[in-house]
């Protein structure tokens, strides 16, 4: 096809390979920016202009190793990509000088990429590897990963459709348009792909429902509401590789017979909106969107709608209501969106990551896709590994990978040698899985067996300093806040549960509370209208199941073993360790700390508001949290 021989693609290929001049790309997804990546980029830009260096400066997305950001890829002609970590604006002059003089002894090199498999084209050899520098796949963080969805993230420039095309982009679309819609659906069915938005519904089957509906108008929607607080893979996927989402949606629209697509993005993701907007315009210019796509008789276009901060709008019927300009309240299903969706028309909704798997499935085939993952859970999943774990970041592994591999081999355990207690998966709808069950393979089936869910892929690691009762309370506080209020069990039941948990964390709990909690949890679970209420008790049920002893400590001994529940702890200064520097007293917002410089300080417990400032500012670890409980007075 003519578009694919456009000279601009060849130019992009040369740029990716830094064939003509050195290429520097700065990881500029929101995560990289939040730790100063934008300042690094600006400094590169300023100096390159000022000194007239012959270097091409690009943006790239996030390769997933968020712990090491800001990341900068440096590629000299003919050589492998060097990935430098924790780069600051102060490092920039030296990097540029070395690039300019061809000196490759860079500081802060974390790993190198000599060959990379973008999957949509044969593996690309980026250049000669350097000696004595680890290849990316030799690093524990990447060793166990399989990058299908994140195949381009952190390598290509997400603001350049040419670079996406240079690594095989939009070829799947061309292939799909030469298939019948039924054949496309069949391929997706063979792949066994299940929806990545939480429930894991088979994607091919869902498409078939929408395909079979007779209507003058159909829609496809991308659910980019990413409501789970603590999960951010969809944000990164959109910011790092927006075109593969768009390509997936175009193929899906062709398969189900839709001519209009909507990407519903949460308000908190302005950069994702910006990059998508740009990508949609580029796709239109190149003829991948609009009328008669690639010369076929299929027409389709995409628009972006911003959400406005409501977790429940991630639920598909609420999301549709929200696009229609109403408040986002779910309605009972059936009818499913495939029958009556946006503006009453058949609508196919999929999650960002679901869509992003589609180009690969079409290009390489459903059978190829099935080689990844486990039985009835094919493919990979991107997890956001966060919380009390050393290697925080986005981790894409085959479904069926054991939790221990993710948390210990990739995540490298908890910082400070602390003991990991549990992980929370699935956000407010999920549950806590204790460390002794970490050999569980992570997939839809096995997590459900433990009372949790896979959800959208958030994994929040909790260590000995995390209180499980507080965690349960935290999630209920969230769901009570986000409950739309339409059905009684969710609106009232959850609130009652929250009251009880509030009491327990404040030392006012009674023994009966625990059985009452269990009873309420099971009632809300079976009687709520939508998924929010039906799953909201999960964090309580699982913490009660695996950590009942912590509840009992709070209720019986009025003690918080993890020293988190504010009402049950006190701050103290260890006289031995205190050097009398007075820093804590200066920073205490309520002047609760007194003492003499050079001697030692102490905290007035009646005045103390337990904000934790003294603990944070003390350089000598002299401030301690204690939770005495009843027995030890």
């Amino acid at each position: 096809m003519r578009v694919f021989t456009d000279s601009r693609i060849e130019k992009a290929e040369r740029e990716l390979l830094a064939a003509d001049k050195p290429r520097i790309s700065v990881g500029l997804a929101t995560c990289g920016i939040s730790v100063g990546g934008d300042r690094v980029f600006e400094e590169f830009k300023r100096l390159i202009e000022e000194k007239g260096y012959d270097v091409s400066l690009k943006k790239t997305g996030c390769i997933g190793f968020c712990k090491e950001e800001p990341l900068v890829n440096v590629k000299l002609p003919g050589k492998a990509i060097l990935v430098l970590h924790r780069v600051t604006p102060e490092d920039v002059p030296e990097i540029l000088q070395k690039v300019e003089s061809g000196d490759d002894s860079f500081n802060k090199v974390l790993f190198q990429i000599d060959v990379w498999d973008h999957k949509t084209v044969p593996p690309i050899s980026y250049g000669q590897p350097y000696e004595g520098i680890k290849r990316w796949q030799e690093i524990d963080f990447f060793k166990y990963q399989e990058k299908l969805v994140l195949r381009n993230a952190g390598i290509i420039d997400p603001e350049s459709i040419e670079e996406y095309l240079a690594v095989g982009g939009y070829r799947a679309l061309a292939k799909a348009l030469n298939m019948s819609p039924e054949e496309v659906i069949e391929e997706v069915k063979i792949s066994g792909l299940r929806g990545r938005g939480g429930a894991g519904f088979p994607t091919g089957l869902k498409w078939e429902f929408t395909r079979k509906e007779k209507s003058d108008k159909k829609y496809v929607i991308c659910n980019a509401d990413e409501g789970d607080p603590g999960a951010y893979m969809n944000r990164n996927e959109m910011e790092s590789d927006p075109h593969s989402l768009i390509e997936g949606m175009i193929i899906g629209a062709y398969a189900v017979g839709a001519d209009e697509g909507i990407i519903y993005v949460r308000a908190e993701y302005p950069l994702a909106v910006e990059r998508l907007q740009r990508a949609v315009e580029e796709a239109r210019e190149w003829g991948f969107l609009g009328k008669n796509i690639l010369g076929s008789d299929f027409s389709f276009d995409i628009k972006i709608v911003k959400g406005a901060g409501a977790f429940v709008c991630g639920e598909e019927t609420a999301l549709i209501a929200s696009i229609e300009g109403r408040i986002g309240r779910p309605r009972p299903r059936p009818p499913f969106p495939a029958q009556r969706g946006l503006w009453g028309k058949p609508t196919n909704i999929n999650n960002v990551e679901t869509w992003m798997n589609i180009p690969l499935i079409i290009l390489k085939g459903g059978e190829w896709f099935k080689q990844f993952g486990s039985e009835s859970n094919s493919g990979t999943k991107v997890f956001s590994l966060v919380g009390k774990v050393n290697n925080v970041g986005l981790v894409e592994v085959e479904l069926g990978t054991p939790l221990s591999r993710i948390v210990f081999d990739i995540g490298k355990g908890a910082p400070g040698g602390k003991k990991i207690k549990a992980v929370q998966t699935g956000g407010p709808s999920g549950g806590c899985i204790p460390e002794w069950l970490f050999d569980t393979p992570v997939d839809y089936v096995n997590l459900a067996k433990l009372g949790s869910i896979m959800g959208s892929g958030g994994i929040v690691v909790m260590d000995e300093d995390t209180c499980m009762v507080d965690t349960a309370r935290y999630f209920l506080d969230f769901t009570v806040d986000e409950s739309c209020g339409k059905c009684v069990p969710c609106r009232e039941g959850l609130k009652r549960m929250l009251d009880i948990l509030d009491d327990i964390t404040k030392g006012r709990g009674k023994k009966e509370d625990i059985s009452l909690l269990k009873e309420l949890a099971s009632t809300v679970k079976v009687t709520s209208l939508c998924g929010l209420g039906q799953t909201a008790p999960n964090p309580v049920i699982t913490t009660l199941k695996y950590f009942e002893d912590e509840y009992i400590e709070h209720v019986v001994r009025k003690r918080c073993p993890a020293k988190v529940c504010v009402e049950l702890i006190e701050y103290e200064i260890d006289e031995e360790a205190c050097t009398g520097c007075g820093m804590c007293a200066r920073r205490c917002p309520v002047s609760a700390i007194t003492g003499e410089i050079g001697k030692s300080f102490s905290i007035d417990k009646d005045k103390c508001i337990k904000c934790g400032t003294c603990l944070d500012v003390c350089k000598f670890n002299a401030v301690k949290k204690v939770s005495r409980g009843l027995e030890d007075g």
Partner: protein
Amino acid sequence: MDFKVVDEIIDKYKDPSGRILGILEDIQDTYNYLPKEVMVYVSKKLNVPLSSLYSVATFYSFFNLEPVGEHLISVCMGTACHVKGAPELLESLKHLLGIDVNEVTDDGKFVLTTTDRKFSLSSARCFGCCSMAPVIRIDDRIYGYVKIKDLPAILKEYGWKEK
């Protein structure tokens, strides 16, 4: 009040999908909250009952019905930030800014504003920077790995003075 800007915003949204949310979002971007006169105007112009506009505005946490201060500070209260000490950050910020702890606006949303209207403080549910927890956002800038001890220095970038 000059409604020309509002007309321009409304004109931008011809397609019904996402229209109401888009218009309200742009209005808030312009005025930093949703002024009542503007809501009345939009309601007439779109022929949508004022009550349904307000029910949308109060349902979604993004919208402010009261003006916010010159700089809006949001503390992420997502799960990753929660386990890494976000509640203490919020507590500490309230004290640094001298904002009364129990103040809540009429619409029940949590936004607290200093008396000189320089700063507003609110909480948010995840900015998608969970790997950098705990995270705060001031205006458009996100700060990762925030420690209580760093707060005064960060606030000073926005003209805050130690009392």
